[in-house]
């Protein structure tokens, strides 16, 4: 009896191990299937990364007829999860913070171009903005640069190390070019969430905040005597990007009005007659060892989805600009972009 039990156990274990080994080798050799987890670099389900990822992942899951789920785990957890899974059951979607974090030396960020494979780019959020209180003495960004040039201290609430800081760095760089030696008059006040930045403005603790069209548009429509009232002074997106936004813009602010806050109406010089712009782009990141067949499969599926055209409408309805680029193109584009911004960050060090 004992022997037969042992034999049974042995045979059972061998069968199980063989099945598992076959299963894993099949999983490596095949394309995306089963359950796929898409981790994102943000913990918020109310912010643009989750929103944008949900739209793209829903379409992709339907197109490939597989289960896909977006998990808002945050940057560090997302990178670590991606590190562990070369099978293709974990993918990541994030935006420019993925490489800006490394350029700014944020703990936990490494060079994504070395450590991961860059997947396709899917869209742009054109809403990255800078705002002042409605009763601020600074009418526009030119006033702010001039005031800093004349020795006034300008406090700007940002979230350090990412998309929020790159506009601040560019502004500081512009002050250094236009008013050499005065750039330290622009002071960063490090904050976390958008509510913290807003609160700093309500308390008169800062003169300018980083925000977004989506999060702050309603505040710009409040009457001037309201403590919460703000107005835009700068959108970092390029004119070309904003021109692709729906004509009605967002809320009660039309595209025409938004164009007043982008270059060439607002000029943040980078020297050599070049003006700074920044489009916040969303893209996929993969484990470096993931099967190239999966990379190709996602590229192809997304190309077909964007060709059908429905996703463009969904994205535009939520104030995203569709911007599909297959993996190779996205990698080259993002590398070039990262190099450009690295030089700005280097200049103001």
């Amino acid at each position, binding site marked *: 009896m004992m022997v037969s039990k042992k034999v049974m156990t042995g045979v059972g274990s061998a069968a199980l191990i063989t099945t598992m080994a076959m299963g894993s080798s099949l999983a490596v050799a095949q394309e995306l299937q089963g359950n796929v987890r898409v981790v994102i670099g943000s913990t918020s389900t109310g912010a643009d990364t989750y929103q944008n990822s949900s739209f793209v992942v829903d379409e992709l899951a339907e197109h490939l007829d597989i289960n896909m789920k977006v998990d*808002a*785990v945050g940057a*560090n*957890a997302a990178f670590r999860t991606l590190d562990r899974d070369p099978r293709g059951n974990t993918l990541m979607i994030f935006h420019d913070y993925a490489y800006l974090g490394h350029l700014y030396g944020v703990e*936990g960020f490494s060079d994504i171009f070395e450590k991961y494979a860059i997947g396709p780019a899917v869209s742009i959020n054109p809403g990255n903005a800078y705002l002042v209180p409605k009763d601020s003495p600074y009418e526009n960004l030119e006033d702010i640069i001039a005031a800093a040039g004349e020795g006034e201290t300008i406090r700007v609430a940002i979230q350090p190390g990412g998309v929020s800081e790159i506009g601040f760095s560019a502004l500081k760089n512009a002050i250094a070019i236009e008013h050499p030696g005065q750039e330290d008059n622009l002071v960063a*006040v490090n904050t976390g969430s958008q509510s913290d930045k807003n609160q700093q403005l309500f308390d008169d603790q800062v003169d300018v905040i980083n925000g977004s069209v989506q*999060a702050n548009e309603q505040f710009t429509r409040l009457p001037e005597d309201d403590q919460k009232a703000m107005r835009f002074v700068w959108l970092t997106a390029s004119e070309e990007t904003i021109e692709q936004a729906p004509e009605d813009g967002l809320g009660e602010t039309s595209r025409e009005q938004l164009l007043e806050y982008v270059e060439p109406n607002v000029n943040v010089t980078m020297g050599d007659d070049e003006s700074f712009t920044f489009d916040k782009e969303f893209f996929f990141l993969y484990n470096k060892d993931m099967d190239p067949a999966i990379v190709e499969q996602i590229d192809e599926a997304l190309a077909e989805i964007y060709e059908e055209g429905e996703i463009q409408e969904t994205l535009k309805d939520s104030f995203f600009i569709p911007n599909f680029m297959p993996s190779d193109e996205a990698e080259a584009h993002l590398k070039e972009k990262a190099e450009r911004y690295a030089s700005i960050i280097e200049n103001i060090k």
Partner: protein
Amino acid sequence: MELLSLFDITFFLLVAFGTLVGIIFGAIPGMTATMAVAVCLPLTYALGLHNGLALLLGLYVGGISGGMVPAVLINIPGTPSSITTTFDGYPMAQKGEGEKALRICVIASVFGGLVSAAVLFLFAPLLADFSIKFSYVEKFLIILLALSVIASLSNSMLVGIFSGVIGVWLSLIGDYSTTDGGNGKTRLMFDFMEPYLFEGFSLLPVLIGIFGISTILLEAEKGIKSEVSGKSVKVSKDAGFSLSIFKGSLTNLTRSSFIGTFVGLLPGVGGSAASVLAYTQEKNLSRDSSQMGKGAPQGIMASESANNALTGGALIPLLSLGIPGDSTTAVLIGAFTLQGIQVGPLFIPENTETWYVMMTALVFANIVMFFLMFYAIKHIAKVVLVPKHILFPIIVMMCVVGAYAINYGIMFDVWTLLIFGVVGYLIQKVGLEVAPLIIGFILGSQAEVYFVKSLESAGTFTTFFTKSPIAVVLWLLILASVVFSVLMSRKNRAKQLQNIAS
């Protein structure tokens, strides 16, 4: 009539279904209302905004309420905000009054939920304007006020404060982020721990470990004999519940509900502070608080009415400023963004239909929660009759699953659960106090952030005293709380000495 056309049977069924699922999530240690809402968030895309909100608000109310069940019956706070429910709920269950305790919880919960819904409906924009008067300094002082509870919760004040300080120390482990005013480096750990502890210990595994696993270890230590007789925790045949228990408790219920609503409307202060504050205020202000912590209904009433009042409170900044008041509403905001709807200061005037839909769902969810729980309690309470050698392994398994799931599959959270289970067991053995330690852990990191940010903004210590009249009032409350704790401590010591002498 136009308004009525917004509602159909599906809407009400979704609220009821959401509430039921929420209660189950809340009742399983490690699963929270936030998790329930996050899991179901993608469904709202298919359901549409109004039906989606019906489901999510049901989950929210159910999830917050469900936390009372394990808190009372097995001493594990199902959600962080039900931590103070364990203080009196579990002792009552040990005395065979589990069903009675749960019935008190349900009534207090529905009271808190409905009061906060009424406040939300009537005063949302006004209160949102008030909430922005609370900047870093005021938020720090509110947390300090909640921390001052440590002194009055302890059996020995010195040991209690020491335990609280350990809790604060534990909360500071991890990355000191630049957004929190830090240097972006990890601290209070060795380098090899960095991959695991970069973001510090997760709250829920710590909480479940220190309360749940340690309780199980302590019970296991007693051996199987004591439980065979079923005497240690039991359900009495007549639950001993009548509404007369609430006689004279209207002040407690109302005060706690308003505290819950108020804390909810302050973004960043966190839900656990609500029940802790309500519990302390009852302890400080009631005529007789000598039984609190030993199984007093008034403690459960304070805790449960406050944590359910959070729901309406946390929706105030969400719907009037676009800022979520707690972690669950932070997920809830996704329902709006997925539908391309802005939430900000003009949300209510520009989306009146959605506003009424939300209010209806909130009130209906509270009513459904009441009926579901009040009449199911006699069955739920029988959980404690399950033999412990069967019950405990199931609880441990659920705790492990919950800990693993809380941050979407981080194995270290399971180790955290087990480590703190053993730590909880040991600290009780060496005579330290669990409740102050855990309150220090929950509130410590926020206290630091707001303290540093206050200094960063003002550049001087005097700002804590001179920032605003609100700050002065908060200082007076802190002072009163500390003085009361010292007096209580002296009184207790005198009583003990008297007992020894006699």
